[in-house]
């Protein structure tokens, strides 16, 4: 049992099988959250960067500048649609959509919370609050993030502008390079968790730190047993760098470097088409941070398995971990200057990739060494249905 079944729902309610409607709740929740939080994210980013750079930030529109992004959105809506003359029109129009849709769809497999149901025969079981708890969950997210390149590449090519084309080419090379390090970092976690299903990976983090028995129970599934520490921090570091590069954010925003390429791949985009690129960027930041939260920070698990923490429902922990990922983004953007392009490639291929390979080797050895002493992180899937240790706290 993961987390704490504060509320137990019956499996059948007036003849409705409640676990069947969980995916729809998750679908509506994720879409509403991602689309609704983007203005908030822009505001948070501006305020945090202003704080880090010791200036005021937005403070004119609304109380404490809260309505600034709303005003910006209205401005974007009413801007003139400009279509340059010699663009490849169909690809030009579809590129922002391709940039945005995979980012939204990627959130479908993130486990936001575990919901506890009581079956008619009395035993409890848990369903993760996801749109689809598929057994290739991680590969699904990686596949969608690899499809996201097309938005950048096609926007750069179809604009028929040399700066856009350069931005698109840079984007494709950068994304392919950093996908490898990202995959290796995630592979280290998979070696420890023994599954690609994200809910299983969260369950695998719900154990005593390093699987050593005899520790107090409030450490079970605590912050010390999450995979950022279990995999000895390096995969988390690699993933954090790769996730910034994957979403084209500073200091890896070479595809849209304004000092050399005007605005890179979206130079020729105006009004709502530009806004869609913007939304897509923030949505993919949320998805990638959500993967970060589920893989390295225990997803919906509370930081300590004791009372004040377990009163908070899991999805709030999940959202706060996603926000932690967003904070890393903003922090990096405010701290580091943009990399030179050859330095970017050298970092990806000559530093991160070998480190990831070596660490995967180390993790494999570590997993092999601990397996006889401790049970593997996950029980085999054909095991008997999980017993409930503590039905209600």
């Amino acid at each position, binding site marked *: 049992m993961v987390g704490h079944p504060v509320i137990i729902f019956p499996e059948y309610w007036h003849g409705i099988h409640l676990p069947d409607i969980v995916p729809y709740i998750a679908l509506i929740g994720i879409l509403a959250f991602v689309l609704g939080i983007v203005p908030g994210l822009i505001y948070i980013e501006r305020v945090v960067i202003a704080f880090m750079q010791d200036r005021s930030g937005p403070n004119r529109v609304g109380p404490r500048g809260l309505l600034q992004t709303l005003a910006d959105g209205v401005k974007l809506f009413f801007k003139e649609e400009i279509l340059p003359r010699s663009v*490849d029109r169909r*690809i030009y129009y579809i590129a922002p959509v391709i940039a945005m849709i995979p980012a939204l769809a990627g959130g479908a497999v993130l486990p936001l919370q575990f919901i506890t149901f009581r079956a008619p025969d009395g035993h409890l079981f848990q369903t993760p609050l996801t749109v689809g708890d*598929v*057994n*290739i969950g991680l*590969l*699904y997210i*990686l*596949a969608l993030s*690899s*499809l996201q*390149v*097309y938005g950048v*590449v*096609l926007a*750069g*090519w179809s604009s028929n502008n040399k700066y856009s*084309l350069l931005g*698109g*080419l840079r984007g*494709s*090379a950068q*994304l*392919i390079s950093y*996908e490898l390090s990202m995959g290796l970092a995630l592979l280290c976690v998979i070696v420890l968790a023994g*599954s*690609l299903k994200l809910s299983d990976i969260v369950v695998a983090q719900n154990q005593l730190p390093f699987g050593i028995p005899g520790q107090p129970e409030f450490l079970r599934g605590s912050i010390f047993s999450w995979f950022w520490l279990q995999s000895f921090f390096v995969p988390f570091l690699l993933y954090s760098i790769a996730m910034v590069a994957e979403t084209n954010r500073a200091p890896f925003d070479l595809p849209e470097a304004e000092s050399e390429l005007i605005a890179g791949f979206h130079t020729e985009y105006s009004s709502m088409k530009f806004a869609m690129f913007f939304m897509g960027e923030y949505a993919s930041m949320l998805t990638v941070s959500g993967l970060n939260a589920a893989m390295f920070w225990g997803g919906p698990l509370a930081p300590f398995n004791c009372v004040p923490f377990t009163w908070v429902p899991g999805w709030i922990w999940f959202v706060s971990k996603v926000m932690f990922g967003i904070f890393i983004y903003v922090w990096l953007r405010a701290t580091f200057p943009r990399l030179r392009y050859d330095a970017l490639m050298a970092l990806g291929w000559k530093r991160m990739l070998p480190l990831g390979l070596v660490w995967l080797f180390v993790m494999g050895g570590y997993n092999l060494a601990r397996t006889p002493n401790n049970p593997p992180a996950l029980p085999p*899937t054909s095991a008997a249905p999980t017993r409930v240790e503590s039905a209600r706290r």
Partner: protein
Amino acid sequence: MTGSFVLFWILAVISVAASIMMVVTKNAVRSALFLVVTFLCVAVYYITLAAQFIAAVQIIVYAGAIMVLFLFVIMLLNLGAPEALRERGTLQTYVAVLLGAVFFIALVVSSTLIKLPTAPAPPAAYQPLGTVQGIGLNLFSPGQPWLFPFEITSILLLVAIVGAIIMAKRRV
């Protein structure tokens, strides 16, 4: 059954149309994009056949990596301009059409005349083959003969990587 039937025909129309468009289109970038659409359709086919792992790998490897490299090269060489690729009326076209027709006829004949063996009923302890676990157990377990061919294939890939590096680099 009907749902998968409808899905099959929708995908069939899209994938066949996209493949034909890929061949017919003059613009190299659009042609590559139609190929991506075909790959995505094939991935959805894999999902309908309960082979989720292959579907995800299809998208990651073909649509996500190989086609992005294709697009990269097309854009870098600026092959997007249609007049750069003008080659028509060659013998190649007729030979391709002829061979395609022969292949199609062979497929139809073989599917109608030859009785293919039907799959035996799945055993009681049915291990789904398409999942990650199913593929891992079938590919790597000592009882199965696939581990050695798999390793041979990985060595082939390693050789290809080394060859690519040697060809790309002037002085090793």
